[in-house]
């Protein structure tokens, strides 16, 4: 078991390292950000920007360092100065970047860098503002959403709302999906089974955003026009009190208000999860019911209920463990599309906002954390599987 854990942890670290590398490459390719704004101002006449300004801003965003040092500073916050051993400094003169490159236009009219006027040495790295590194939770500063504020602050502000939605969705999906799957397997070919499988099929082929918009259409718009009880269509809380027929006046930000706002996004997400999970549990349960031990239990004369509860259910839910662990990254990441449709201020919406406003540090941070949680969830699923199914032994 420990062998397996060590091997898997090593694999995990490799996967995460490559994810960080991919993220970082995308981040450096990413357009937009303050650097581009500065470049675009360079051409205009209203502000004269000379080479010193450019060099300073480049240094501020660490664009003057060589790529590999930039990556390592982004990842672990090192090198942040010359190596200090026993009070003595080494490698103080090691060149790590170019503060002022010499630019020329080549034959095609494109600017190319031919040399370096002023290099950056390790000694000069001292005292520069640096992050502690992604590994230690410092994702840098936001470029747009909260200008120059730490990305972690931005993320933390969205987590409570996201957890509020996703935890309710997960609990509801478990409470509804598991029984639906189990019962429709027990009563195979019945009307119940047929309904459940059809609805699951519909649920998994209907795009979530369309379903969300349909719900808004029905419950928020049409009902309101008809003067019936309606649900508020967007955000997680209203900013003013409003009147709902049947419930009377609803105060802004009250518990009832939050509840009403949560109904529709929860329905969309739960429907989606239930569709997928109930299908999986159903097929798993069908396989279990065909097994010999179930036949033996029945032959022994046990009540059908006992057979199901003591033997079948437990075994049917074993493979489900590997599926349900993926709800963990979902809890953090929210639901990108549904939150956009319902304007729910969660992580998913933050991700889209960040991307459309070219605030790539925030986007990358969300992506990297999601990847990290997914990898952990995969490992957790595999480990749990061995606990739940004694027949599986990890070498």
């Amino acid at each position, binding site marked *: 078991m420990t062998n397996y854990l060590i091997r898997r942890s090593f694999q995990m670290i490799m996967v995460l390292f490559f994810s960080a590398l991919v993220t970082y490459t995308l981040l450096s390719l990413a357009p937009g950000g303050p650097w581009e704004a500065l470049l675009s101002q360079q051409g205009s006449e209203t502000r004269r920007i000379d080479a010193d300004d450019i060099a300073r801003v480049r240094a501020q965003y660490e664009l003057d360092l060589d790529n590999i040092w930039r990556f390592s500073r982004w990842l672990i916050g090192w090198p942040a100065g010359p190596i200090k051993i026993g009070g003595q400094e080494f490698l103080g003169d090691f060149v790590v970047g170019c503060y002022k490159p010499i630019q020329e236009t080549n034959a095609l009219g494109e600017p190319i860098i031919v040399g370096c006027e002023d290099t950056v040495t390790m000694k000069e790295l001292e005292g520069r503002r640096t992050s502690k590194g992604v590994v230690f939770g410092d994702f840098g500063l936001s470029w747009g959403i909260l200008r120059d504020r730490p990305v972690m602050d931005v993320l933390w502000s969205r987590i409570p709302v996201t957890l509020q939605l996703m935890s309710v969705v997960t609990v509801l999906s478990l409470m509804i999906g598991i029984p639906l799957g189990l019962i429709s397997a027990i009563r195979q070919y019945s009307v119940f089974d047929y309904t459940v499988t059809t609805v699951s099929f519909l649920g998994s082929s209907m795009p979530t955003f*369309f379903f969300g*918009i349909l719900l808004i259409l029905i419950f928020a718009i049409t009902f309101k026009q008809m003067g019936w009880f309606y649900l508020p269509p967007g955000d997680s809380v209203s900013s003013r009190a409003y009147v709902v027929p049947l419930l009377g006046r609803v105060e802004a930000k009250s518990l009832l208000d939050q509840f009403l706002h949560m109904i529709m996004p929860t329905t969309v997400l739960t429907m989606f999860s239930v569709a997928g999970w109930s299908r999986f549990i159903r097929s798993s349960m069908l396989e279990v019911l065909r097994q010999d031990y179930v036949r033996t239990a029945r032959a022994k004369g046990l009540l059908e209920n006992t057979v199901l509860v003591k033997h079948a259910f437990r075994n049917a839910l074993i493979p489900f463990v590997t599926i349900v662990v993926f709800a963990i990254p979902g809890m953090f*990441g929210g639901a*990108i599309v549904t939150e956009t449709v319902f304007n729910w201020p969660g992580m998913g919406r933050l991700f889209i906002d960040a991307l*459309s406003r070219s605030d790539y540090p925030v986007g990358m941070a969300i*992506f990297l954390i999601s990847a990290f949680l997914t990898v952990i969830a995969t490992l957790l699923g595999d480990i749990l599987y061995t606990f739940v199914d004694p027949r599986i032994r990890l070498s």
Partner: protein
Amino acid sequence: MTAPAAPVRKVVEVLQPEAMPKEETQFTVIRRRFMRHKLAFFSLILLGLIFLASLFAAQIAPYGPTEIEIGNAFARPGAVDEATGKTHWLGTDHLGRDYFSRILYAARISLTVALCVVIFSTIVGSLFGAVSGFYGGLVDDVGMRLVEFMLTIPDLPLLLIISSILLQSPDIVPVPKAVIDFTAAAMYISSREALQVIMVILVLTAFGWLGVARLMRGMVLSIKNMEYVDAARALGVSDFSIITRHLIPNAFAPIIVSASLALAGSVITESVLSFLGLGIQDPTPTWGNMLSFTQDYMFQHPWLPLIPGLPIFICAMAFNFVGDGLRDALDPRLKR
């Protein structure tokens, strides 16, 4: 011995219908089994109709997809334009563009993107999986590590990041001008839009081939030990020929099923990308970005989101039904 009274007739003549059943090719068998699923068959016909309608969009649509007429915004369905006498079958959008025409042109783009993505990812994935499964050893290890690594990463966020980067600076990926021109000519769109379409196809293919590769590898691993492969090798057939002429055709049944289900997924993913503003941009019509606009105006005109939303739903369902029907039709050939 007395001669029999009746003339002797050959057994074959008497028992012809039962002794010699009509010869059926594999394709006929599959087709017969497929048509037993009425839903799947009907979906296939529906998809064929949609495909034809999108192909002849220029002839069927009364208006162009980008004809703006701001004064005529939000006309009711069935309104007739006085100047030209053509009807707006589904009304107009917020800029006065005819919905019906836009839906048809959007069908062309959405279906083309989905088809291209699935074809390319099937080709790439099959080759990758077949080579990986056939050679085994280090090639297989490295290949499958790569596939697993990419599968572990959550795909939608990465997809969105790459789309948004490619959207703002499309010159990161060098696309030959000939390809852009070909796409623009084939779909009657400008070359800037053709570049967007190509980007979306590339981005979706980059994640689409993973599932196919894993599937193909599994199939190849189980077919690899069959006798005809040994025979081919003994005859000196080259590795490449073995892969392309023996392994891939025999592994194809689950690949086809997964491809038709992937078509449904591609239609939805492309519309999600466009809905979020990171796929194909306005004014090129695609069901996704039309849906995002209708959401803004939904409160005054409630029926609007149904217009682009229903085609997405119907196409996805139709592809799913066809996939299910194919899975049942091809069942005995699936090697479990």
